[in-house]
């Protein structure tokens, strides 16, 4: 037998364990890191003391070591020597010192700011250091090149702000028994704290027999594990939800008590879409017993009417619920089936099962508080809501939950805060406040305060024109291409990117984005690894990675709260700096140090505890900022966090369940009508020339079944292209990491685009064909695989195929970026929320010769790929 003096398994080698947290996606699962005696990081595990991820990590979290030791990492500040810029063009970097690099960046940014601050576009996307997002405020400039937020949730985040006064939402896995997932991977493959949520959802599925129904065009992981997969034509999720709502209302399977008592559903709506108010602004309801109008808070009300048509003060009006019921008259499952292809009988059955599972009328006592128990919830995310009429889509999904009384209840659909400091301390977005007329104060702005309207627009993304949306970064392409129409009296010429890859993330024509970047006078990127965007930079400022830096955060935990420590496991491998230090150095060079400290005090909530305040003229390290954030949460210093790793606890029930108790929720969104009219007035006053073509119909207080414009593309574009991620590539850049590549490119769903065999036969296409996928806006090339797990109208493109060749040789070309197929224009952007359409109508054409980039050895398709169906092993 072999005798060993040293252990061979990494976690058993002599060394030490450190508590930290993960950043391989945007969320923050807690970890423990093993560092060997010679200082090598050789194992990362989940921290078993956290009740959130319970010691578990997803494949990405398990792969962090190879990002740390990736030989492609930026090792020093770099300066471009090749004046030619382009995709795949070698910048011919030369190393420079930090002083030289920061002086150069400071000088160039100063020059731009002195000319016109609007010409500097920041793209700052580190989700775990959200305070960095506020840096542009120091410039007095909101002209970001935003590449996040609007894509995942232009309509999603504001709608959560309207309904829950929160950033995101989740089904309550603690009690849910009937879980509908529509176009989202929660609990299986993506979104909020994936490893943690998969852990809790698996327990609910197996130990409690929670039923899972997944509504999607593609058989995702969730669909494969579900009790039922409901295939649906892409971009028709809203119509499916309205079909469910139709059944719930028509068959009186709704929670009338909740709607009457806890929502504005009984408030009377006039013909102008506004609530009917008295001279003092108080809203009327109809008393169904006394058959007369009363003010909403009249103690004499015997029963709130939800239905009927009335006249109050000479105005015809109806309760908001009746307005919705009128819309639903045209939303019978049989009608919706024509668009969704979901059999009407299926929709009717699911609606009835859902209502039954919701146990309307039941209660549960939690911590001495009696709460409605509604163990059925409809969850959704990017795929379901990423459409032109996104605000309406989001609202429709929420209303299904409203009808059974499952908003913010145990077992129901519950708001999730972006950062719990917001709720308790920051006093801004995410707080529960009383609004007018007994209603919850809506909080549609979850990422930053409203950007004021301006004409000509100060922002090329037109954020001032989306007063209740999320920054529509893609519109920068549209406005720059039509500068005269949009009255642009400046042209951005400077770009600052920080952990941002807009060229990968943004929809629209690649050539136009390339042209915009070529026009830039100066580009600086703060990053770790080469990617599609930072290869255009003039200067690279390399930052520490997640194993070399300090941080304190807890981002979007679906049912926990607290703080997670990140601490360096080793000294920096290379000549890198923390993002905090880099922004301090740049701010100082721009004369903005005091302003930046003031902003940091505000956005981190330090002003709430004066002893934590940053002094105006000092520069602080990542460690010092992290320590303050920890102290703000629970008063503990950094030593405590180093010992414990985190302060994660299950979310307190009073914050989790009905934190708005006593206020009414917004079943009907009058705020959207008001936002429309306010914007219209501003555009009239400013005489904005395109105000008459603005899509005013997108602002609806209740969702309708009007089809999204993507369905009206030319008939020869006869398929719908969608993109998808799985857990191995959830959020952010993963491809290029050898361990991720090793599992992703052995999985047949990620090595070719997927088409239903019947759809392939009809088009005389077959497995292995190389096809051009062409939309009215662009095209990509791909290899075809046939899959029974695909709706016959859909073509499914894994996100693993959407990276293009860069300076990072670990990234394999997959035939082009899916986002190339999508338009970046106003017609396909929700005027209400800023959400762009994320589905493209396409046609497939078999091509004989394979383009060079796709044939290259570095391409995904150069690799062996498995067959999806049949008896063969996939690996």
């Amino acid at each position, binding site marked *: 037998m072999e005798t060993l003096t040293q252990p061979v*398994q990494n976690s058993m080698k002599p060394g030490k364990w450190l508590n930290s947290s993960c950043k391989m996606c945007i969320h923050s699962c807690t970890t423990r890191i093993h560092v060997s005696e010679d200082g090598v990081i050789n*194992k990362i595990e989940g921290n078993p003391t956290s009740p959130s991820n319970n010691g578990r990590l997803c494949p990405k979290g398990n792969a962090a070591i190879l990002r740390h030791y990736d030989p492609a990492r930026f090792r020093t500040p770099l300066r471009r020597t090749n004046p030619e810029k382009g995709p795949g063009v070698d910048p011919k970097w030369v190393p420079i010192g930090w002083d030289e690099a920061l002086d150069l960046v400071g000088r160039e940014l100063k020059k731009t700011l002195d000319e016109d601050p609007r010409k500097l576009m920041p793209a700052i996307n580190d989700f775990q250091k959200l305070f960095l997002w506020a840096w542009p405020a120091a410039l007095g400039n909101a002209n970001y090149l935003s590449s996040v937020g609007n894509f995942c949730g232009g309509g999603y985040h504001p709608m959560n702000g309207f309904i829950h006064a929160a950033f995101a939402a989740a089904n309550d896995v603690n009690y849910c028994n009937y879980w509908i997932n529509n176009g989202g991977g929660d609990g299986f493959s993506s979104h909020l704290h994936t490893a943690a949520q998969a852990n809790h959802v698996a327990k609910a599925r197996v130990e409690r027999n929670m039923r899972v129904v997944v509504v999607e065009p593609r058989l995702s992981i969730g669909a494969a594990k579900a009790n039922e*997969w409901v295939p649906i034509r892409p971009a028709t999720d809203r119509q499916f939800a309205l079909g469910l709502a139709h059944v719930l209302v028509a068959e009186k399977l709704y929670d009338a008590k909740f709607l009457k008592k806890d929502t504005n559903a009984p408030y009377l709506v006039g013909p102008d879409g506004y609530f009917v108010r008295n001279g003092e602004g108080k809203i009327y309801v109809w008393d169904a017993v006394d058959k007369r109008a009363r003010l909403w808070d009249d103690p004499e009300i015997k029963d709130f009417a939800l239905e009927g048509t009335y006249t109050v003060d000479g105005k015809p009006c109806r309760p908001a619920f009746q307005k919705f019921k009128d819309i639903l008259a045209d939303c019978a499952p049989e009608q919706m089936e024509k668009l969704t292809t979901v059999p009407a009988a299926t929709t009717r059955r699911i609606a009835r099962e859902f209502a039954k599972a919701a146990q309307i009328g039941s209660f549960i006592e939690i911590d001495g508080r009696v709460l409605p128990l509604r163990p059925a919830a409809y969850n959704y995310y990017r795929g379901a809501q990423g459409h032109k009429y996104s605000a309406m889509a989001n609202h429709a999904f929420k209303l299904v939950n409203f009808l059974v009384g499952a908003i913010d209840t145990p077992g129901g659909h519950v708001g999730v805060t972006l950062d719990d400091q917001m709720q308790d301390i920051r006093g801004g977005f995410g707080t529960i406040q009383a609004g007018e007329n007994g209603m919850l104060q809506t909080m549609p702005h979850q990422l930053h305060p409203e950007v004021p309207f301006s004409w000509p627009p100060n922002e090329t993304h037109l954020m001032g024109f989306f007063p209740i949306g999320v920054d529509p970064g893609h519109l920068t392409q549209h406005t720059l291409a039509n500068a005269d129409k949009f009255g642009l009296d400046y042209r951005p010429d400077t770009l600052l990117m920080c952990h941002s890859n807009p060229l990968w993330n943004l929809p629209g024509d690649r050539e136009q984005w390339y042209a915009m970047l070529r026009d830039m006078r100066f580009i600086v990127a703060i990053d770790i690894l080469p990617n599609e965007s930072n290869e255009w930079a003039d200067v690279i400022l390399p930052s520490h990675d997640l194993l070399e830096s300090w941080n304190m955060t807890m981002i979007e935990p679906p049912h926990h709260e607290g703080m997670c420590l990140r601490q360096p496991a080793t000294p920096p491998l290379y000549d890198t700096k923390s993002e905090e230090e880099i922004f301090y150095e740049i701010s100082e060079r721009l004369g903005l140090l005091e302003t930046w400290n003031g902003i940091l005090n505000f956005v981190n909530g330090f002003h709430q505890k004066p002893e934590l305040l940053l002094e105006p003229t000092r520069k602080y390290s990542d460690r010092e900022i992290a320590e303050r954030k920890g102290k703000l949460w629970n008063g503990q210093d950094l030593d405590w966090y180093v010992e414990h790793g985190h302060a994660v606890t299950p979310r307190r029930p009073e914050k989790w369940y009905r934190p708005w108790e006593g206020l009414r929720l917004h079943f009907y969104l009058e705020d959207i009508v008001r936002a429309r009219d306010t914007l219209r007035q501003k555009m009239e006053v400013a005489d904005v020339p395109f105000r008459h073509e603005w899509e005013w119909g997108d602002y609806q207080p209740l969702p309708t079944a009007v089809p999204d414009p993507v369905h009206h593309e030319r008939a020869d574009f006869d398929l719908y292209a969608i993109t998808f991620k799985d857990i191995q590539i959830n959020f952010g850049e993963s491809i290029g990491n050898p*361990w991720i590549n090793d*599992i992703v490119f052995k999985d047949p769903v990620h090595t070719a685009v997927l088409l239903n065999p019947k759809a392939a036969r009809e088009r005389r296409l077959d497995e292995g064909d190389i096809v051009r996928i062409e939309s009215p806006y662009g095209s990509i090339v791909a290899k075809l695989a046939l899959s*029974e797990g695909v709706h016959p109208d859909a073509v499914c493109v894994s996100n693993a195929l959407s990276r293009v060749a860069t300076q990072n040789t670990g990234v394999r070309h997959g035939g082009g970026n899916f986002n190339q197929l999508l338009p970046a224009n106003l017609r396909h952007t929700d005027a209400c929320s800023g959400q762009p359409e994320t589905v493209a109508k396409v046609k497939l054409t078999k091509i004989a010769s394979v383009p060079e980039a796709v044939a290259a050895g570095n391409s995904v398709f150069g690799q062996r790929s498995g067959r999806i169906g049949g008896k063969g*092993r996939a690996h």
Partner: protein
Amino acid sequence: MAKWGMVFDLRRCIGCNACAVACKQENSLPDGVFFTKTLSEEVGEYPDVTRSYVPTICNHCEDAPCERACPTGATYTRPDGIVMVDRDKCIGCGTCIVACPYDQRTRLEPEMLNKGLFGDGRLTPFEEQGIGRFTAGTVVKCTFCHERVDAGLLPACVATCPTEARIFGDLDDPHSRPRQLILERRGRQPLPEKNTNPRVFYID
């Protein structure tokens, strides 16, 4: 003495392969080498179709055909049931690879060890520290993370599995979690017709 075994709960497994990556980092596996991985296969026809995810690993068989086939005694079974390979005795003849009905053994070729995880012929500090456990020309496979188990820890794949689809424990203990699950949910061994008596069971 415990007899270690594992149960795979197919209802829980989501095919994410966190197990495979955890194993790679725990055991410093060369690129392309897996001690465990999850297979997936589409089953059925649209719209009545699903995808099965099936984790696989060395089954640490009670009657291990690899051990019987090994001409040098390099493959042996520890008293606790873990089937091991002694690299000092392994001559890389590959007989065990042919004998294993589960395709769980890999012969390390020199280029596997030399090319590095990033394929550039250079080893990262992580690899430099870990690669010494391997000898080119010998055969490797899952060891149930024998050193972790000896220290009272769970195998790395079990510890990380997000859905707790891998349940590890003493198959000789009638009260152990794997034994209970095998009983309650009628655990099945892979390829029982091979008469290998695997210490790995599947439940669904």
